[in-house]
């Protein structure tokens, strides 16, 4: 039976940038064993020599001629911004302490 401890879930939540309550961490940890057991079935198959498929179709790089096409105006692009300033997205501090 697989399992994932509360602390391991907390670490993953940190990596995924999701704050979680103690209850959520404990809950997820208790469900994870069952889910991991189910998905781990992919390891039951002998996959030696089988190539991986990342995409259902052969992908080709698609390029277009380098010409200017109509696009969103700055006003439209900012229309959903939680905060803005001088035609830019205003974000919380990203480099340590506030000035």
């Amino acid at each position, binding site marked *: 039976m697989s399992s994932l401890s509360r602390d391991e879930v907390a670490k993953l939540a940190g990596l995924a940038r*999701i704050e979680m309550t103690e209850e959520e961490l404990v809950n997820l940890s208790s469900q994870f064993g069952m889910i991991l057991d189910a998905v781990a079935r992919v390891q039951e198959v002998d996959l030696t020599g089988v190539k991986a498929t990342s995409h259902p179709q052969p992908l080709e790089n698609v390029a277009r001629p380098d010409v200017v096409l109509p696009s969103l105006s700055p006003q439209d692009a900012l229309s959903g911004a939680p905060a803005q300033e001088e035609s830019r997205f205003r974000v919380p501090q990203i480099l340590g302490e506030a000035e």
Partner: protein
Amino acid sequence: MIRKTAVQMAESLAQGETTSVELTQAHLDRIADVDGKVKAFLHVDAEGALAQAKQVDEKRKSGEKLSPLAGIPLALKDVLTQKGIPTTSGSKILEGWRPPYDSTVVSKLKDAGVVIMGKTNMDEFAMGSSTENSGYGPTFNPWDLARTPGGSSGGSAAAVSSFEAPLAIGSDTGGSIRQPAALTGIVGVRPTYGAVSRFGLIAYSSSLDQAGPFGRTVLDTALLHEVMAGHDPKDATSINAPVPAVVAAAKSGDVKGMKIGVIKQLQGEGYQKGVQTRFDESLKELAALGAEIVEVDCPSFEYALAAYYLIAPSECSSNLARFDAMRYGLRTGDVNGASAEAVMSATRDAGFGREVKRRIILGTYALSSGYYDAYYGSAQKIRTLIIQDYAKAFSQADVLVSPTAPTTAFKIGEKVDDPMAMYLADVATIPVNLAGICGMSLPAGLADEDNLPVGFQIMAPAMQDQRLYQAGSALEAALLSKWGAPILDKAPALGGSK
């Protein structure tokens, strides 16, 4: 008027027996009457819909040539952006967001004069099989309001089956069009991957996502399919080839000599008795029409569910990183010099629901170093085996068939605390998504034990979508003559006007 097929409505419009404004108003009235019970819609844009309808009526009056679905109302899954109209993907993290652009599907609908009445409920970011994971509460199955309509496109399926809309659009990543179509007694198609543009389709799992049509008949569904499909330079994975002749195929409905392969792994144990019975009967109908029924073996399908629940969460953990509280959507915790990282984490906690968090964490785990090869890597190889199984099966048959879902509609709350039981609802639909091919679900009757709709699934190779419609319309016609009336005539009236 609202119980007609889209084709009949289009005829009435062309004959001048009614106008698109009248038709749209009749559906808006129906929504006002019954959506308090069904809760299919998250947002109804009555004003916009009537304006669109009026425009089509004026064009028709002036003698302009119109597309076959011009003036027909439609319900749009809230996973697709529509400029200026609230778009949430069923998530609180996007509450109140009004996209500044139209998805390509919406542009095509507008160009064809289709009247978009509103946005329908869904499992948050399309993650779920019951619409119970919506951040805005569940949708209820018109056949029995104590049951789910399936999901994730449960709102769209419920809208069509309750006569709130003759047509709807959904999206299908693991069965999210076909399974709700099955559970509500309507037709739903997941087109070939790359056949319909994903531009403006809010991404869940990019290598599996595909938008597609819902209708009450195979021909109605084909007409919508033809409107929404086609190459789009704005989507790098869009197939640059003509749209398969789905409307012509839906009109022909001839299966004489067609080879129909029954997938051994997708029936029997685990399938509800009434589901299996209706499926077997449908096969007999197809055989009576001259189709040749063969059995095909797809041994890797046994691992499809496991592979899907590694691939989809892995892709989602990456795709949903864009909800970072910086450019659009919710932002919480932005106080007194809180760091961007703290604001991001607080916002994602407040904005994402339980299932979304579960899948992001699972995906983060499956992609982390040390586990990548064992989980995500193995799942990608299983995907190859499934593609090979299909290739072999399609060398023996023109289309493949199975029940769409192992059970009929389940009760609200029945599986919501048991993720694995919920995931099993997609066991028969997931292989199509992993292989990037196309699939249809159409009604096969009602299960004896609960009188709820059963879905019959047809699968065809990539860009052979017309085969779905060919076999589907043949079966539909045979079953209709057996039943004497469309299956939805047996659904309860919901207390609204008819």
